[in-house]
């Protein structure tokens, strides 16, 4: 996160009563990236969509690529991403972001193109488009926000819902017999020839957030190499539909979700021997 000293132009101001008051200089330790629109977000309290938006926009700011970045957000809670990310964006039909991104990137190969997709969107209705885009090695970044439910439509079962997890459409807990086991999407993508960098991260702790940001930064940088698709799965939360407090939901990610979906890099570029901090856990 950028830190710089906030130097005010004057060290004294004149108060309305006429008195001269001294102002202290503060060291800036935190601010929102300028690439994030300064408005209230519609996300539920404690929902990590807002945090993940911010991380992506920080990377765009740090790399100074606002002018060259196009985001695609399909249907899901984050369909309004274009209200928050101060970049050119396209809203896509449910599940179709990878195809839309293909259309954008093929015509503008030197731009940075990313999709931002939920697990219902990417792993259910859009798994076909996703597999084919990754298999073709489209030079895009796919940010896959896995919160194990359909958030937007109020908590139905997703392909990534944990075995035994209760949702509104698996009221007795997801049953492997009836609906299969959760899809390990990142591992699936890593099998495809066009995948260049595949990792699974989370946002459940400050350290995890830093690792996620690092992975995002790497993925954006890799895009200039034109070597294939970068796929970042982020284990995220949905406190509203999980019926948990935000803190409980973060614990749930660490203690439950990460068992089914192990964190760490799954496919890293062979030529560049870098791993995101934390490695395979």
């Amino acid at each position, binding site marked *: 996160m950028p830190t710089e000293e906030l130097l005010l132009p004057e060290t004294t101001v004149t108060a309305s009563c006429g008195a001269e008051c001294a102002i202290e200089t503060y060291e800036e330790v935190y601010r929102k990236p300028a690439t994030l629109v300064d408005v209230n977000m519609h996300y539920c309290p404690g929902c990590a969509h807002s945090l993940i938006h911010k991380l992506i926009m920080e990377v765009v700011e740090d790399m100074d690529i606002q*002018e060259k*970045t196009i985001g695609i957000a399909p249907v899901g809670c984050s369909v309004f991403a274009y209200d928050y990310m101060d970049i*050119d964006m*396209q809203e896509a039909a449910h599940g179709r972001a990878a*195809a839309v991104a293909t*259309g954008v990137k093929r015509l503008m190969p030197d731009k940075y193109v990313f999709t931002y997709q939920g697990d219902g969107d990417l792993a259910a209705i859009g798994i076909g488009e996703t597999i*084919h885009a990754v298999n073709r090695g489209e030079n895009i970044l796919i940010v896959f926000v896995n919160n194990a439910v359909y958030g937007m439509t109020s908590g139905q079962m997703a392909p990534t819902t944990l075995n035994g997890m209760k949702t509104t459409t698996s009221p007795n807990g997801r049953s492997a017999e009836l609906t299969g086991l959760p899809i390990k999407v990142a591992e699936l993508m890593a099998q495809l020839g066009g995948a260049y960098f595949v990792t699974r991260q989370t946002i459940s702790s400050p350290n995890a957030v830093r690792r996620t940001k690092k992975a995002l930064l790497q993925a954006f940088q890799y895009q200039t190499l034109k070597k294939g698709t970068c796929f970042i799965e982020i284990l995220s939360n949905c406190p509203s539909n999980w019926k948990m407090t935000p803190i409980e939901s973060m614990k749930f990610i660490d203690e439950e979700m990460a068992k089914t979906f192990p964190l760490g890099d799954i496919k890293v570029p062979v030529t560049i021997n870098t791993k995101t901090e934390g490695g395979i856990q």
Partner: protein
Amino acid sequence: MEAKLMKGNEALAEAAIQAGCDAYFGYPITPQSEVLEYLAVEMPKHNRIVMQAESEVASINMVYGAAGAGFRAMTSSSSPGISLMAEGISYLAGAELPCLLVNVNRAGPGLGTIQPGQGDYFQATKGGGHGDYRMIVLAPASVQEMADHVFLGFDLADKYCNPVMILSDGAIGQMMEKVVFQPYIHNKVDKPWATVGKPASRNRNFITSLHIRPEDMEVQNQKLLDKYNLMRKQEVRYEEFQTEDAEYLFVAYGLSSRICQKAVDLAREKGIKVGLFRPISLFPFPYQRLEVLASQVKLMLSVELNTGQMVEDVQLAVKGKVPVEFYGRLGGMIPTPEEVLLHLEKLMQ
């Protein structure tokens, strides 16, 4: 201009190149695979994008991405594939993205047959996808028009920021005829809304069909309606053949209009005063001109390769002033001109 002998589908594909189409996305399906095959060879020569997508769902969404970035993009398919694209077409219309779509209609429903049909008239002109949208629909009746409508279609798409569909059929797509490519000047329109990356000098652009507040959605719907009404005013296209003194009128588009044209000749030889009215734009439909003709003729016969779809628009047009009858062959069967005339003669008695 030198005339070339070409298949309808190939003439259409060649026209796409000459029209400055930046990107084509498609998926094989008979009877239109020649479009993808032709462009797979030719587009790379012009440094353009051609891609075989994994499905029609993907093709139409690739078109969405490319069109949203401000490029000339198109796709083509045949009936079952167009059904798969329906959602995407609705999104394109909702987001007001210009693009060209081609349906080389085969007979259905379901998997149907690969022979020509006109069963997708309703789908093309009355919706097809969800929500309240329209698109200009052009119906070529010759290989020449397969090419001409590509130029026209791209220009109209840009003019209205809306998808335009060419509704052809398996026969027009597959037949070989002479075609002349007139020199075309691509007057590039400004697309300040395109998502090409946001410079500091402007606000961000976003392509969307989402207006969650009903107040906003209604405003957008009204804006779309105004646009559709403008199309209705400005883009009606049709052709008439021997209508000046006609007492009877065939109404037909695409392949059936070709058959009816022959039937008119046969009728005239027999001394029966028959004419042909051929809608070229199926949306907007030429209601007004047909209404005028209604006060001149004794009967109109809508000839279609379906169970009777355009006939409803003809009926709407004439407002009961004249009897409107229907004749159709189904399942990919094509009527002969004699057969069509015989049907008219029966109705005349």
